[in-house]
């Protein structure tokens, strides 16, 4: 079970969180014309990386904040966690 450092609450067990997928995907702006390709890339196409990956988790049974977690998908090592409003660097 992973140990995830919530930027708001501190170290917590994985079972307090739920997974939210790729954190680098940006939703196209509302009302903006987007091509089929752009829309498919937003809704469906994911890379399924092996290695470092920025992903979203929600601290569901804690502060309910969505956070950004940089995790190695192969080793589960967690390098960094950010608040929702912090940009991935």
């Amino acid at each position, binding site marked *: *079970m*992973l*140990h995830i450092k919530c930027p708001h609450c501190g170290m917590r*067990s994985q079972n307090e969180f*739920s997974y*939210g997928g790729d954190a680098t995907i940006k*939703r*196209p702006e*509302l*009302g903006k014309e*987007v091509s089929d390709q752009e*829309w498919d890339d*937003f*809704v*469906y196409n994911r890379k399924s990386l092996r290695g470092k990956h920025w992903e*979203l988790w*929600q601290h*569901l049974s804690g502060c*309910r*904040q*969505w956070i950004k977690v940089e995790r190695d998908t192969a*080793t*589960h090592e*967690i390098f960094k966690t950010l608040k*929702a*409003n912090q940009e991935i660097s």
Partner: protein
Amino acid sequence: MTQPFRLENVGLINRDKKISFKFNGKNYYGYEGDTLASALIANGVHLVGRSFKYHRPRGFFGAGVDEPYAIVQLYRNGETEPNIKATEQELFDGLEATSVNCWPSVNFDIGAINNFLKIFLPAGFYYKTFMWPKSFWFKIYEPFIRKAAGLGVASIKHDKERYEHKYEYCDLLITGSGPSGLASAYAAAKNGARVILAEDKSRFGGTLLTSEVNIGNQSGKEWADGIISELKEMPNVTVKNRSQVFGYYDHNMLVMSERISDHLPKTKKFHPKQRLWYIRAKEVLISSGSIERPIVFGNNDTPGVMLSSAAKEYLKVYGVLVGKNPLIFTNNDSGYETAIEFKKNGVDPVILDTRKNPKSEIVDEAIDLGINIKFSYVVVAAQGYKKVKSADIAKISDDKEQLGVIENINCDCICVSGFWTPTIHLASQSGNKTKFKDDIDAFVPGISKQNETTLGAANGTYTLDETLKSSFETGHKLSKEITNKDNKISFPNVVEKKSTVHDKFWCVPLPKGKNYKRFLDFQNDVAVSDIEIALKEGYRSIEHVKRYTTLGMATDQGKTSNLNGLQLVSKIENKVVPAVGHTTFRPPYTPVSIGAIVGREVGKHSKPTRKSPMHSWHEKNNAVFVDAGVWLRPRYYKQDQENLFEGSKREAKNVRTNVGVCDVTTLGKIDIKGPDAAELLNRVYTNAWLKLPVGKARYGVMLREDGIVMDDGTTTRISENHYHMTTTTAQAANVLSHLEYYLQLVWPELNVNVVSSTEQWAGAAIAGPKSRDLLQKLFPNSDVSNEGLPFMGYMEGDLFGVKARIFRISFSGELAYEVNVESDNGNFMWEKIMEVGQEFKIQPYGTEALSTLRIEMGHVAGSELDGRTIPYDNSLEGLLSKKKDFIGKRSLTRKAFTADDRQKVVGVVPLDKKTSIPEGSHLVKDSNAPLPNPKLGYISASCWSVEHDNPFSLAILKDGKNMIGEKLFVMSPLKNKVIPVEIVSSHYVDPKGERVRS
């Protein structure tokens, strides 16, 4: 009755307490402190079972967790449990055990025919057999193998025992209480660290209980006892025996199973049988020791062949002789320690040492004691079927290839020592890439992957002095980093016998003309010849060889077999062992009972049960409950002997004719506040929200980004910046997360707060033509007329002194209202409604009637909004705003979603107006078409229409908009039904929706 193999005055058992037990129906006795294995051996019983594949007789091989085959079926307090190691099961009064793999009995075993029909069961026999004609498998192999194989029988009865889970944090978790575990625990504890010390066995001390050493002028056992009693007194230390740390998971999470009551005749009241500990440790010290490995020779699975360390443990801990005429077969000094123990207790052993000329303190001592030692000698084969009777032995050439003349000597046991294999399972599970250590011929942990350090024998350190030193140091260093304390401990003086190098010899060659089975894996019956076949058949990767031959699989996980298997592969493949590599060690290290894994989450505790504030009223009024997610909801209120069908029909009818009340507390509720609340709703719902006035409710549908309907519900504007959203019961949690996602990550600029208020409000839906009359009596001071409170209107009211929210919304399609009060007043509200409603013939109605009402009205719900449908499919396309963007809108332009013959919700009526239609049935054009019959759609929900008094269903049907009036067939192969039906509008009652506005 005497115990022929029990020594007097030796061992750590309690001779004042006799314990009687039964094995295979026969009565025996042992002593408190015995294991089932030690007590059986004391009674001269060596035959415990039959092997898995060939059904050869099986005895005891180890004395603890290393045991591959002394597995029994245990009976305790009216329950039975399979897969119990006799070497680990402590004896208790009334214990009963039977052999497994034996049919019809351990002494006459029909499966032993397999032994003579080896042709059926070579390497890969599972694969090969599965490939054979199917008819053979089902008719011949499976029934035969099922009856004859297996490691016991699981009980199908409900387990009455209680199992617990515990979550724990510590600075240091130490796995094993041998010398390294004790030393490191002691040093860390003295530095103030929070320590958990786990020992698998009932006794602490590990090898200190059996080795002839001296620590600080005490025997090993005395020293261990002293350390343990001191640790037990320290508040920062948890010391646990009968506790196996069996799994090392991510981020230093380890799981330990504590056997609290397994050693007792019956579990004490309010005690659990076992407890599973989830331990998050800052540092993990692996002090799991090592396991002696066998030397491979002919018939090395005969009962009476066992590890030399096990023989020593039976003698020193239990006072039991594994034989009175022992033969010790060794390639290192450890075998001598066992021989010396025999000799000291009046039994004359013979030592066969594969080494030519070893020189060490221990060898000298054995010579001085006058023990018969034959150097450069090997056991070629054990002789005897159900027990060792003699051994074929021979001199072996210096290159270990040539055997001399075979001699036969009498013996009743063969104690084998092929040197020591570090127990690296936990380190390997943590992700540690192990490395091969040439001088000990085994793998040890390499660079740590997580915060784990391996100490002592588990790390390939086999001298006590070195082990204690490094363990004290490591315990001190790691604890200092955590606690910043620096309490030094004086290091005790250690006296141990020096030993010399072992002989890297592991397998005795077959003598000419002999074809003895030489076993590598005793639990899975994998012999040298099986590995040879696998390699001949082209298997190369050790992982493939493992799966093909079953080497190192199952509960044993290769504890004694792993390295010899690798040696064999490396020899045939002409590669060094590290190049072959070892297979992955997987948790659990030892079997864990399913009960312990499940813990207390069984039966009704497998999920939380949520009840509405009106639950006790429902109970008192004969509600029959149904699970709705985690909620318990009344399905119907039973009157007299009526069944669900009759009861729900009565309730639904009463709603259509008079008035009914339904507990709708379970609906998800989300409180939304902030100046941008309307903007948020406008983005998440498909319809327009910016112009909803205060005091009005609106129905809305929300989509996922892929265009699929996520949920629906009404949202009410309570005040300027305050909205009350309702969701379906099932989607409440998901909708909240969905809103939080967009507010926190996508549109953080929106000034809105959302919070769940589901549990803050109790809700009652009042529905039926007389509902307004009732409402007026409930709220005499409010104007609830059609003008005062129109359809989709909202107001606050005073319910006999209790503040209430009144919504004019309808799920049933009737004139209806929903009243909410704070949860604590829920029961008061309900009772008032029932009391005042008497004169209007009010009846409560449950979820079944609720479904009936919504189905015949054609209101879509969870069974249509099932994560596969878009708004059009549910005839909700009228709610899609063309003027604004919203979540998921772009996806609705996808080709499949705009296809001409896109599926749509329709109504379905059986032509005979009698036959009920099973939910989930398929709709087809021709019931006699060849299979697979093209499916046009499926039945999503069925009811008995109370308005029309005939069955009615909703279906999602291909090209639904053009199918009204068509005749199709409903097919349910599961229920063996074919029903001719007519497709009608989904709005079967009040298609214009006039009642809700009346």
